[in-house]
């Protein structure tokens, strides 16, 4: 069995950090900090859901550079600094292009069945919640059974097939 994710991607890490900041540290008593945090969270949600736009990155950059000046207390300043550091990663731009690259963002992750490794057990097909996997189980001496394939247009990248595959025969294609 392989793990679904190798590491958390930078946008998701930034989103998690801001959500934690909003839930724990933020007081909401100066005007810019809560709005900037709320906006950043909204944009990162879009980016990690595969709906990010280049303009979002520009807006996030602006928040990261300006919030440090605008926020009242060191907590807001720290949040801005962390965001700024995160944004130096090129993963944000890649997310906007549609690639997560780590498997963190399901919407940006796709898989394929490696035909050479597949034992045609059918476990992945049973596990798929979206009926995105086509193919027939192996039956000895039958020649018309189809190999398993994942229909990318139906797949949402949830990775359940990977988890159940006994032969490590499913790999991430992006």
């Amino acid at each position, binding site marked *: 069995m392989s793990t679904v994710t190798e590491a958390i991607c930078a946008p998701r890490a930034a989103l998690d950090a801001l959500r934690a900041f*909003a*839930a724990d540290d933020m007081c*909401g008593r*100066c005007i*810019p900090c*809560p*709005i900037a945090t709320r906006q950043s969270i909204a944009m990162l949600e879009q980016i990690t859901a595969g709906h990010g736009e280049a303009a979002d990155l520009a807006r996030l950059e602006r*928040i990261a550079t300006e*919030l440090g000046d*605008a926020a009242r207390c060191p907590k807001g300043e720290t949040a801005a600094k962390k965001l700024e550091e995160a944004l130096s990663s090129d993963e944000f731009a890649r997310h906007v292009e549609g690639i997560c690259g780590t498997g963190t963002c399901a919407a940006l992750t796709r898989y394929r069945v490696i035909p050479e490794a597949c034992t045609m057990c059918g476990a992945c097909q049973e596990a798929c919640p979206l009926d995105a996997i086509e193919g027939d189980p192996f039956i000895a001496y039958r020649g018309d059974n189809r190999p398993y394939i994942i229909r990318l247009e139906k797949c949402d990248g949830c990775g359940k097939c990977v988890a159940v595959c006994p032969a490590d025969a499913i790999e991430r294609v992006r």
Partner: protein
Amino acid sequence: MAKEITLHIDGQPVTVPEGTTILQAAESIGIEIPRLCYFEGLPPSGSCRLCLVEIEGQSRLAVSCMQRVKDGMAVQTASDRVVESRRFILELIWSTHDGDCTTCEKAGACDLQRYTYDLDIDKEKYGLYAPDEISSDLGDPLLERNLRLCILCGRCIRVCREKSQGILDFMERGMSTIVTTSLNKPLAESGCDFCGSCIEVCPVGCLVERDRKLRGREWEFESAETVCGHCNLRCSQVIDLAHGEIVRARPGDDGYLCVRGKFGWDYLASEDRLDLPLVRNGNALEETTWEAALARAAEGLAGQEGVAGIVGPNVTNETVKAFGSLIRDGLESTNVAFTGGEVPISVLSTFGDLKALAGIPDLEKAKKILAVGPSIAESYPRARLAIKRAVAGGAKLIVIDPNDSELSGMATLHLKPEAGTEPAVLNAVAKALVEGGFYNADAVGQIEGSAEAIEEISKQGASAGGVSNEQIAEAAKLFAKGKGVVVSSTTTYGILKRSAGLLMLTGRMKGALLPLHPAGNPWAGILLGAKAEEEDAKALYVLGADPAATGNLPEVGFLIVQDLFLTATAKQADVVLPLRAFAEEEGTVIGAGGKLIPVTAAAPSELPQAWQTLVDLSARLGKPLPYRSIRDVRAAVKEAIAGAEGVAKLPLMSGTGNTEAHRPYERFELPEPSWTARSQIRGGAPAAGSIEAKEEVAA
């Protein structure tokens, strides 16, 4: 003298006293730094971050509304970094401000709108975030709270704490923060007294008077300043008109109006106002012209033996004076009564002049305050605010009130006598002052009859309505020294005379006595002069009073009534003349400090001025009054006030005061002031946080 600090702001040198903030220093040389949370007169909170400035040698931007100046500081208020930060904050605010300037009532007077224009802000830079559950109208009476426009500047919270009940605060936290009442209850259930101070400070359209909605834009308003007429404190008031109609009232220079001043102007625009004279035809009153009505009035008065007049306390001095002149000189009768009560005589017969009267500034500066009577805070919110400020400044407050009240909660000492025994308490305090040697012997020695009065004071019995001797002694000692004011919501002769006595015993002869009265000009009675023994009146002229409402209208052969509305008295009249209200009349009133205060016709009226009508009527009677202009009447007013002055006399302070009748101007029982009481606060709001309203809420 504070130390002077010199600094440079945007390259300009400026010298200001130590302790000045950068924002104030910039303002002093005409540099306006944008701000949304700072408001002059309120403690700064530094939360909007819009007033950030750059200080040479500091890496962080500084909040100019809080940061104080230092010698040699070099401040940039509009550097690229500062302006970019400001633009950023405004862009963010627009993502939480669900508003449309084209339909917003605040447009034209909105700070957010102005800065957005000045800095050419992209309003849609960030997506709008306004959850559906945030309400666009919380349904409060009198004012609309639209939290979809709230930018969380917190001004309303701070002004409510400073000037009113402190019922607003930030609720929840973080990104869910909203400004509302505890548990987000409606204002009417939160102890709000509807002074509307929050509306005055709101920088955006979140808080708006319901009356003004869809009545006109800010830039169409014409404004005129006058003084509110809903009690004798006469707070300055600005009336805003749009298309010739009143749409809003707001505080003038004083910066505060209570619910009556802020919202209680509806009576001016009431459909029930009289706009044409009426004359009796059989059982009916029929509308007619001024010409015909005055002719009928003159005819009715001319043939009568024994004419009497009654004038109320809600008209200008000029009206009272002209009325008195008409009855006395024109109709040769001294039978003229004033329904405004016993304040003038109690003051004049003790202090001798009106200088002893205190106004709100005296109360705010007082170090010792003696408050007598019930519901001072609840009925006179401006007095409450003054006392609150004085107490915050270290003043000692002594309350004489049988009940617990908001004021007694602030008091250093609360004397709780049995109801109706307040005069005895005042007597006892006077006795304690004399016996303890706390009184000002030098000052008292100058006053006529003082030896006799002092002797009587020390001889009287010790009964003080159930208040202990220790408390009385403590009150006397506490009140004895420092700038002292007696403020009283009970304006009977017995109470005021004794209050005056206490002030005289402690040597306070100026700006010391503040009687609170629900009428707008309750001291105008002194303009009428002393009244002779009354004979039965055959004809009666009632102006701005409603004796029939309290069953005190005498049977007369001919009755003229001049009032705003068709009152109970007016319904029985032979001639009814319309009257201008305070905000419509030119002239003067005697203010709380005993000085003449000008009132202007801030609201439009087609009616003639009352003094003019009275002069017209006198001409028709063949006895024209010598008033060609309002200046002539005003001169007569000043003369009458000077003529009413006498010498100071220490009053005898014994007995209960309840049986004493000293009413030279008063023929009838005190009616309710004729239209103050009628002005309904619309929408079911509790009137000025009154006791009744609180009981209603509790029930």
